[in-house]
């Protein structure tokens, strides 16, 4: 074929068909590579996990909008899990007492609140840690802005536990 091309198509240059074939070949190679990487990352078992979290000094309006059973979404719009029990208390701030020592005080009602709660999420166990489907590591200390349908809140993850069967 190469000979035939050499005889008849010498200096013919790239045609649309050639480019289409090249693109398809590149797509095939890329898809195989992606698949291998994907499998490597997500070959581990999916696990239902309970993620506990805290929200510090959120607007009280946010606290009143969070309810058990709400879908919790990641910043990219994909679903992380479902909200479990939530506790809302006036936010704590650090002040100085009469002796000059630190003392915890609470913001007045309907101003700022601290929220603590849990959510159940399907996570991927990898190297003893947990990842979301998008590859985001969820572990104690992870700080991330999550949202329900109508509220945004920045959480600090305080723990991740696989659900017991």
């Amino acid at each position, binding site marked *: 074929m190469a000979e035939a091309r050499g005889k008849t198509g010498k200096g013919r240059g790239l045609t649309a068909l050639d480019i289409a074939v090249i693109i398809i070949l590149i797509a095939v190679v890329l898809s195989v590579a992606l698949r291998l990487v994907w499998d490597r990352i997500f070959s581990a078992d999916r696990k239902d996990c309970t993620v506990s979290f805290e929200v510090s000094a959120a607007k009280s309006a946010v606290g009143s909008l969070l309810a058990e059973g709400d879908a919790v979404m990641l910043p990219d719009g994909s679903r992380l899990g479902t909200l479990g029990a939530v506790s809302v208390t006036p936010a704590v701030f650090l002040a100085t007492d009469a002796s000059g020592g630190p*003392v915890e005080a609470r913001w007045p009602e309907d101003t700022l609140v601290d929220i603590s709660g849990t959510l159940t999420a399907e996570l991927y166990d990898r190297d003893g840690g947990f990842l979301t489907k998008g590859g985001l590591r969820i572990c104690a200390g992870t700080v991330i802005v999550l949202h329900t349908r109508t*509220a945004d809140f920045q959480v600090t993850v305080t723990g991740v536990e696989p659900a017991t069967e």
Partner: protein
Amino acid sequence: MTNEKTKSRKDRQGSTRSSGRRRGFNALDVFLILLILCCVGLAVLAYLPGSGFLRKSDRAQITYVIEFEGVRPDFASYIREGDRVTSSEGCDLGTVAAGVEVGVCNVVRYDPATADVVSSAHPSLSNLLVTVSLTADSDPLNGYSSEGLRIAVGAELDCMFPGFTGRGTCISITENGTGTGGER
């Protein structure tokens, strides 16, 4: 006779070569390549996690309140009903639906003498509450957005009015009904 055959074959080969050389890269080739690239691009977009592509999105008429904390009270006069609101990135955030409400900007402190938290009004600053109406994209899970910018309680918005600019926080949202439009 043989020479004539050879000659005519050579002529044909010559014409094939010249036509192949002339063919080059034309508009149809470009169109085909673009078509293939579009197909690949669409397929990638459709399967990206969290991609809004191919996702149904409705429109909803919403009214939401943005609170600007610690602002000089006279700034309220620079925000008028009917003013268009945009984000700092130029996204449409809607139209001011009502007169600006000037609220108290509370300063909270701990009183060591009484061991109580004391709240008092700031002597010179106020909180401005601006009610905005917007026909937003509405998603059953991700809520409301306008031109990709999420509108949610607790979300901070860099707002630009014709006579005022500031960073506020959305503190409430009310859906008034289904807006015009349809699937995105």
